[in-house]
């Protein structure tokens, strides 16, 4: 049983999704592997870099691997270095994919690909004004989260650690604050390198995660996609079940106090 319960949907901009695992399409060697990994992940939202695909080519290898009836094809603006470029790419994508959902990425520095907070906010405002449903990739900055939410973004997508780094939930304390304050879904994006990282994000209360590198570059991408699917469900269940409080001191699972009480009259 790996499916979430029927009534526990991820709602983004009024649209319901059964899976809380969003996936990327980069770094896969073969389209068949991408197709199989998507299926194994149970994902319903698949993001694609506009720069990487030929949206006008009906035979594009990546696009043909994504069944549009099954997945929401979410174009991203990866490669944009400023707000103007990001807005332009979003509009090109919208004209071709036929909807106005976009994953906003503005990453001016080519090594760590960290999101530019100023340009991201600027682009988000512009795109929302143009009727886009904006899912912004952002630093784990609670104040920026407030601004992006006020700008009308449909989600907040704070990074766990630098994209592609597989370093896990390094920004947990800040993401915790973002989750506490957000009124839109929080999708932890970037840096989740293992299913346990994804589970931890969901346990923390994140609404969903986005994973690409850890699946695409695994020795067995399909097996890893399935592992992430299980982890996301486990993390969500744990969150809903209510994790017990943590303390610094040991607490025995069979307390001695009661028994001693019974022995000594």
């Amino acid at each position, binding site marked *: 049983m790996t499916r979430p319960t029927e009534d526990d949907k991820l709602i983004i901009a009024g649209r319901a999704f059964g899976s809380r695992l969003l996936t990327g399409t*980069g*770094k*896969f*060697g*073969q*389209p068949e592997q991408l197709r199989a990994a998507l299926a194994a992940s149970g994902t319903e939202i698949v993001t694609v870099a*506009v*720069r*990487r*695909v*030929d949206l006008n080519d009906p035979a594009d*290898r990546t696009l043909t691997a994504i069944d549009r009836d099954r997945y929401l094809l979410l174009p991203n603006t990866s*490669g*944009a*270095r400023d707000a*103007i*470029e990001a807005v*332009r*790419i979003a509009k*090109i994508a919208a004209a071709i994919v036929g909807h106005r959902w976009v994953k906003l990425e503005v990453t*001016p*520095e*080519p*090594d760590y690909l960290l999101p530019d907070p100023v340009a991201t906010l600027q682009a988000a405002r512009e795109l929302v004004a143009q009727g886009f449903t904006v899912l912004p990739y952002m630093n784990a900055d609670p104040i920026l989260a407030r601004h992006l939410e006020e700008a009308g973004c449909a989600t907040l997508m704070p990074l766990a650690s630098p994209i*592609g*780094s*597989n370093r896990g939930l390094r920004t947990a304390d800040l993401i915790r604050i973002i989750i506490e304050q957000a009124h839109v879904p929080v999708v932890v994006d970037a840096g989740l390198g293992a299913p346990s990282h994804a589970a931890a994000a969901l346990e923390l209360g994140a609404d969903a995660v986005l994973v690409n*590198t850890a699946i*695409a*570059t695994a020795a067995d991408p399909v097996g890893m996609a399935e592992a992430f699917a299980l982890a996301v469900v486990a993390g969500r269940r744990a969150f809903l079940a209510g994790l017990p409080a943590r303390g610094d001191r040991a607490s025995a699972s069979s307390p001695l106090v009661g028994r001693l009480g019974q022995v000594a009259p």
Partner: protein
Amino acid sequence: MSEPSALAGLRDPGLWERVQQRIYSSTSDDVARALASERRTPEQLVALLSPAADAVRAELEAAARQLTLQRFGRTVVLYVPLYLSNSCTNSCSYCGFARQRDIRRATLDDSELDVELQRLAGQHFRHLLLLTGEDRRAASVDFIRAAVARCHARFSSVSVEVYPMAAAEYAALVAAGCDGLTLYQETYHQPTYAAVHPDGPKADFDARLAAPLRAAAAGMRSVSLGALLGLADWRVEGVLLAMHGALLRQQSWRTRLAFGFPRLRSDPGAGCTLRTLSEDELGQLICGLRLCFPDADLVLSTRECAEFRDRMVGVGVTRMSAGSRTAPGGYALGSDAGEQFAVTDTRTPAEIAGMLEAHGYEPVWKDFDQGFLA
């Protein structure tokens, strides 16, 4: 920091010898430390390119392979070079375009360019590299700018490998839609540089060194550096190349860095002996640069043979040319104009793509979009 003062260290004529001394005195402990360090700089490259590292090439390769997979996945971008002109005012002793050579000179006009572009687009290419010799009369900045603009209709990415330019000239190319520059220093060993570039504008070592930084500052998204391997000691060449790259990134943090690895196959002339390097040594250089620059594009052209190129897939190389011709009009026009160098990997673009697929890699034809540009 201004351009000249930033480059002062690299211009220092004593640098080569100091680096050489450190490379040849590196120990296996230095190599182990460099391999173990989390953030590697040209400082660590000294050990990784030293003879002390020769014994652990397999370890270097494994580390480079892991890093390349993590940062780039199972993908290799394919591009094609297109020579606009072979006219040149330089007399580089190793180059087929040198002005003293008795070859047929040609510069493509618009209609010839269109014929070439149509052929290349039909082969699936979306990344194009435009090249010229250094002759501002045959191939002016305006001519190159117009060619860049003309290529946009069919190609997602248009970059250039042309003579050094002024900042405003680079900016004009960027405005026309050029997203990358390739400019190789050829050698960082100044006495050799002077010997093989006896005259013409290229004789100015310092001017060439400064140009890539200027292009990056002018907004070129990607800048590719390289040394013509075989002119001087490749180990020292590699460290100074990395220093040049690190400096460029320090000056222009938005610029994407790339390195090319052109390897000279025959005697460079001008009284210089070929300081050849083996494929294993070239592999070591590629791995070393990957370990110091995890996100840099590493480019391997058709100068190298099919077997070596195949072997380097996944190790560090992220961009490859395919089906290259090195003379203007070489694709569809059947031109007999002179070539810059002889191509060794003569496989067709489709064959190269097939080879990548057979290795479990995706041949990426498009990794940029004209939509980024105004």
